[in-house]
């Protein structure tokens, strides 16, 4: 069935077109929406695009980083100031997917994809959204919890504070196929340290629920403590709390629950 393609120069017009039509989807890099169209997804009858340059802008000069929703993973890998995000960007797809897939689209990627969003969740990112009526800034965990209802809104950008030190942000993706493959699980942690104490611990998990989630029990085990063996042990033991992984071809829910603590322990203790 032919699809109507609507391309707008202004994001406001694109957002209005998206919010007024339930069968409209925003087309970013194409790795999700074109895939759905190729599979014959009849729920999509209109594809909306925006050619606004702001959608592909990277602002990484200051302490707060803003990535336009249309920034590709290849662009992130080419950006020296974003070195701490190279591991999550490189863990996605092969080169072609990284040349196409975008930061904004990754927010909507279902399990076993969406690895970059796990990193964004650990960095407490804020998602800038243009709706039919105006713009909003939504904390990323809130955005992910209501993700199914967000398809009518246009994601403009995602922003977050740069980690204070390179060691404060850590990322690990467990995949069966290397170097490319969907995730068994994905982990990202952000551990800002004040003195020797962790203040504002964030632990984000991918493929442990329908959307990336925060492991809040593990965060509580880390908060206010020094990152020593007993703290790491407590966080690892708590990693599985509140998760609801599913079965798929890459791993069973049981397996994911079994390994999440093991990999969190390795990530926190700096093991390969």
């Amino acid at each position, binding site marked *: 069935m032919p699809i*109507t*393609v609507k*391309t707008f120069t202004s994001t406001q017009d694109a957002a209005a077109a998206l919010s007024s039509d339930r069968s409209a989807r925003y087309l970013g890099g*194409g790795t999700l929406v*074109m895939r759905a169209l190729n599979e014959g997804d009849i729920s999509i009858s209109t594809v909306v*695009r925006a050619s606004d340059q702001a959608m592909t802008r990277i602002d990484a000069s200051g302490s707060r980083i803003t990535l336009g929703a249309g920034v590709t993973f290849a662009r992130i890998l080419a950006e020296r100031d974003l070195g701490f995000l190279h591991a999550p960007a490189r863990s996605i797809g092969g*080169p*072609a997917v990284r040349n196409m897939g975008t930061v904004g689209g990754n927010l909507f990627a279902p399990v076993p994809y969406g690895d970059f969003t796990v990193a964004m969740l650990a960095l407490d990112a804020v998602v800038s959204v243009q709706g039919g009526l105006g713009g909003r800034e939504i904390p990323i965990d809130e955005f992910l919890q209501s993700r199914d209802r967000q398809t009518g809104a246009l994601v403009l950008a995602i922003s977050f504070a740069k980690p204070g030190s390179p060691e404060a942000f850590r990322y690990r993706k467990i995949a069966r196929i290397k*170097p490319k493959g969907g995730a068994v699980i994905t982990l990202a942690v952000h551990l800002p340290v004040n003195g020797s104490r962790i203040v504002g611990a964030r632990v984000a998990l991918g493929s442990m629920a329908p959307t990336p989630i925060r492991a809040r029990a593990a965060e509580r085990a880390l908060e206010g403590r020094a990152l020593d063996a007993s703290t790491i042990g407590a966080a690892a033991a708590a990693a599985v709390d509140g998760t609801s992984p599913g079965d798929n071809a890459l791993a069973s829910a049981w397996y994911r629950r079994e390994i999440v603590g093991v990999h969190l322990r390795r990530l926190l203790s700096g093991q390969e």
Partner: protein
Amino acid sequence: MAKTPLQFSHNGRDVAIFVDGGTNLLVALRELIGDMTPKFGCGQGGCGTCSVLIDGELHLSCLTLAETVAGRSVETLDGIKDGPNLHPLQRAFADNFAAQCGYCTPGMLMAAKALLDRNPQPSRAEVVEAISGNICRCTGYEPIINAVLAAASGGRARA
């Protein structure tokens, strides 16, 4: 529904076609332009056999909305040979038995070309990374990696 006019450069030649809304670039290339070198594999971005270069960058044509290449340069396997002479990568693939059934070969060659255009002397690890989005079920990849390294070193064997 009205078709959309679309013009772009296909292997250095300007082409103009009319596409239905939602047509992907792979369908446009194969069915409207008659370039059968990019193959349909999975339609999901998982296999890489539809890989083409858009403005020199590796893309999956099955996941590219055809309209988005308006005014841009699309390069397929059909365009890499020089008249009757095979491209050095094609020659190396033949010499190193890097094609068995051949279905992945167009995508492998374009992924390898994207690498060598940017990095003429890649390491083995860089070759592995460059073809990591392309699936081959015949060769076990080793002959393909060796072929790309052989092409990179101008046909000389490489340790």
